[in-house]
C-alpha cells in the first residue's frame, strides 16, 4: 500500500488492503515480494495516465516523481540526490529513447516495435517495521591476517567478498589478509538477522565498520606497549603499524599479533566483537528501459534491449553489483513474459509444477542485459551503500509492458504477457482475426 503514494507523492491517498484465502499453492517469499507487484500496478497505471493525457511518459514522470528532499514520515527515509533525473538520463541515452520513440510512432504491419520505461523505489532493510540487528567478530591470526565472522549469509551474491573488502578497508589491512568461511551460520558466528530485504551490505556494513574501528583502536592500544608511541600517533595501513607523523613502519601486524600472544606478562589473543542495532533505513531507486518487437499474428514478444539504472549508493564491488542486477533483470523478464502457475479449474491442482512447463526464461530469451549505476553516497550508511538485492526486479515487468503498449496500443493489465494472453487481447482489439475470419478469405 505504502508503495503507491510514495513514488509519486500524493497527499490525498486512501487505500484498503485485505487478505484473501485461497486453496492454491502455498506462496513463499521471492525476491522483492510485494514490490514487483506494486510497481507493476503503479507504473502501468502511470503510463496509462500519460498516454491518455497525451503526455510524454518520461517528462510526465520527471514532473510528478518524488522531489529531492522528500522525507517519508514513517521510515524517515530521504531522497538526498537528484537520482531520478540522473538514472532516467542514463537509461534514455543507452536505449536511444527519443529517436526510437519517434521512429516507432506510426507503425502498421504485423511486426511492431516499442520502447517503455518504469521507475521504482525500494527500502533497504525493514526498520522501522521490524528490528534490524547485525553483529561482527574479528579474530586476528598470528600472521596479522584476520578471521571475519558475520551472521549475514552468503547466498551466491558475493556478500562475503563485499564484507571482506569493508573489513580490509576500515582495519587497514590488505584484502587477501581477510579470511572468511563462506556459508558460515550462527552456530559459529555472532547473530545477524539474515539475507532478506536487500539489507546485508547496509546492515552488516554497520556492524563490520563498528567492529573494525574498535578493533583498530584496541590494536593501537596494544601496540603502544611495544612501540611506546602514543596510540593517537599511530595508524594501521597495509597491514603495518605506522607512525602517522612521519609515516615510518613501526612493526607489522603479524609481529604485533605474535609478540602479544607469547608475551609472558600480558599474553592476549587479539579479537573484537560488536553487535549493532540499526535504526535507519535508506531509499534505493532506479529505472528500467526496455525495447521490444511484437510479432502480432504470432502473439510473440521479443525483447530487443533492456537496461536497468540503479542508485544503490556507493558500490563496494562494481562487478558483483552488475551481476546482482543481471540476475534480477532475468527474473523480471520471466515475471513479465512467461512465468505462471497454472491450475486445473476443477480440482485446483497445480498443472505445471516442473521446470519444463513452468517457463523460466532461458539465456536464449535474454538480450544483452545492461546494468548501469549512478553512485550517490547514502549519508546514513557505513560505507555509502544501500539496497541492491531485490531492486533489480521491480521495474522490469512494467517497462516491458509499457514497451508492448507503445508497440501495439494494447495496455495489458496482467502478467505474464504470454502468447495466450496476447492471443486473447489481440483478438479483442481486432489486431488479429483468428481462424473464422481466415476461412472467409
Amino acid at each position, binding site marked *: 500500500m505504502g508503495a503507491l503514494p510514495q513514488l509519486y507523492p500524493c497527499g490525498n491517498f486512501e487505500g484498503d488492503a485485505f487478505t484473501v484465502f485461497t486453496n492454491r499453492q502455498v506462496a513463499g517469499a521471492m525476491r522483492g515480494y510485494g514490490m514487483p507487484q506494486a510497481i507493476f500496478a503503479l507504473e502501468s497505471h502511470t503510463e496509462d495516465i500519460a498516454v491518455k493525457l497525451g503526455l510524454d511518459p518520461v517528462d510526465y514522470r520527471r514532473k510528478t516523481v518524488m522531489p529531492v528532499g522528500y522525507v517519508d514520515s514513517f521510515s524517515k527515509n530521504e531522497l538526498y540526490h537528484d537520482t531520478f533525473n540522473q538514472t532516467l538520463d542514463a537509461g534514455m541515452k543507452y536505449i536511444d529513447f527519443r529517436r526510437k520513440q519517434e521512429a516507432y510512432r506510426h507503425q502498421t504491419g504485423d511486426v511492431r516495435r516499442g520502447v517503455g520505461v518504469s521507475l521504482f523505489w525500494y527500502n533497504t532493510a525493514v526498520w522501522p517495521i521490524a528490528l534490524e540487528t547485525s553483529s561482527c567478530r574479528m579474530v586476528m591470526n598470528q600472521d596479522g591476517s584476520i578471521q571475519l565472522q558475520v551472521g549475514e549469509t552468503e547466498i551466491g551474491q558475493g556478500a562475503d567478498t563485499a564484507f571482506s573488502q569493508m573489513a580490509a578497508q576500515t582495519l587497514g589491512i590488505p584484502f587477501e589478509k581477510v579470511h572468511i568461511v563462506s556459508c558460515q551460520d550462527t552456530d559459529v558466528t555472532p547473530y545477524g538477522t539474515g539475507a532478506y530485504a536487500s539489507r546485508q551490505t547496509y546492515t552488516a556494513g554497520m556492524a563490520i565498520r563498528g567492529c573494525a574501528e574498535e578493533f583498530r583502536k584496541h590494536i593501537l592500544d596494544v601496540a603502544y606497549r611495544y612501540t611506546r608511541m602514543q596510540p593517537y600517533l599511530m595508524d594501521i595501513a597495509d597491514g603495518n603499524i605506522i607512525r602517522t607523523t612521519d609515516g615510518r613502519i613501526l612493526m607489522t601486524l603479524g609481529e604485533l599479533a605474535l609478540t602479544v600472544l607469547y608475551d609472558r606478562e600480558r599474553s592476549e589473543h587479539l579479537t573484537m566483537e560488536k553487535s549493532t542495532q540499526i535504526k535507519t533505513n535508506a531509499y534505493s531507486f532506479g529505472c528500467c528501459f526496455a525495447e521490444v518487437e511484437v510479432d502480432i499474428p504470432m502473439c510473440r514478444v521479443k525483447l530487443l534491449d533492456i537496461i536497468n539504472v540503479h542508485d544503490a549508493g556507493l558500490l563496494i564491488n562494481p562487478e558483483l553489483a552488475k551481476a546482482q542486477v543481471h540476475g534480477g533483470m532475468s527474473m523480471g523478464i520471466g515475471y513479465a513474459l512467461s512465468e505462471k502457475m497454472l491450475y486445473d479449474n476443477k480440482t485446483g491442482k497445480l498443472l505445471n509444477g516442473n521446470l519444463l512447463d513452468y517457463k523460466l526464461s*532461458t539465456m536464449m530469451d535474454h538480450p544483452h542485459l545492461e546494468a548501469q549505476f549512478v553512485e550517490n553516497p547514502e549519508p546514513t550508511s557505513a560505507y555509502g551503500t544501500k539496497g541492491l538485492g531485490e531492486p533489480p526486479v521491480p521495474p522490469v515487468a512494467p517497462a516491458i509492458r509499457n514497451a508492448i503498449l507503445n508497440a501495439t496500443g494494447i495496455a495489458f493489465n496482467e502478467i505474464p504477457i504470454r502468447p*495466450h494472453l496476447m492471443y486473447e487481447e489481440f483478438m479483442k482489439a481486432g489486431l488479429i482475426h483468428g481462424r473464422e475470419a481466415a476461412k472467409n478469405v
Partner: protein
Amino acid sequence: MYDIKALYEATTVDEAVSLRQEHPEAVIIAGGSDVLIKIREGKLAGRELISIYGIDSIRGVSMEHDGTLRIGSLTSFSHIVSSPLIREHIAVLGEAAGMVGGPQIRAIGTIGGNTCNGVTSADTASTLLAWDAVIELAGAEGVRHVPIESFYLGAGRADIHSDEIQTGILIRREAYEGFSGHYIKYGMRNAMEIATAGCSVNVKLSPDGNNIERLRIAFGVAAPVPIRAHKTESQWTGKPADDETAEGIACSVLDDVKPRDSWRASRDMRLHLCSEMAKRAFLEAVRRNKERRV
C-alpha cells in the same frame, strides 16, 4: 535413482534383433533422453532395457549410390546440425534438430528416438514427414521399409514389430532434389522447450520459378501424431508461388489440422497459429527455392 531390472547391450543390429526376441518385454533405449525420464517418473520403472547405443553401424549420415540420403537411427541432433550432406540437401532438418532442447540434449538425443517415441511435438518428426522420409526397420525376417506417415499409429505408438529396431531414415533423391524447406517451431521460450505447435513446409517451384510444382506441408501438435496437410497440398499445387497463394494456404490448412484444447494452449489459438505458421513457412520455403536458382 533409476529403477532398472536389467540392461542388455547390443553392438550389432543382429544382436539387437536376437535380444528383442529373447526379451520381448524389454524397452529399447538409445540416447535415453525420453526413456530415462519415464523411468524416473515411474512410468517405465523396473523394466528390462535393451541398449542399442553401441551399434555404431547405424550412426551417421551418408548418401547411397542412387542419391538416397541415409540417416542412421542413432545419429544425434548435434551431428545432424553439423552434417555437410544435411546442410546441402535438406538444410531444414538440421535447423529443426538445432531447435531441440539445449546443447546437452542435442548431444545425447537421437533422431531414431525422436521418431520411435511417436510424439507429435518431436521437432524432427514434422520435417521428416514433410520430406516424405522412409523408415527402415530390421527384424528377424529381414529389413522392412515404411513410409513415415504410416509409421505413426497413434499418440506415442509407432509401427515397430516386437523383434524389430529402427535402423535408419531414408530420404529419396526425388523427395529432396530441387526442394527447399522451412520449419517453424512455436514455443513459449527459445530453448528447453517442447513445441506448442510446429509446421514444416517444403516446395519445388516450376522451372521458371513462378508456380508451385510440388508442395508438402506437415504439422506437429496439430493432431495426436504429426500430420500432412494433404488437401491443402493438392489444392495449391500448380498455383502461383505468391502472397495470394500463401493467404489461401493459411486458410485451407484449417481443414487439414485437428489440434485439441489443452491447458498448454487452446484449440482456437493453435488453429490460428497453424494457419499463420503455414503461411510463413510457405513464403520462406519459396524464397529459399528462388534463391537457390540464382
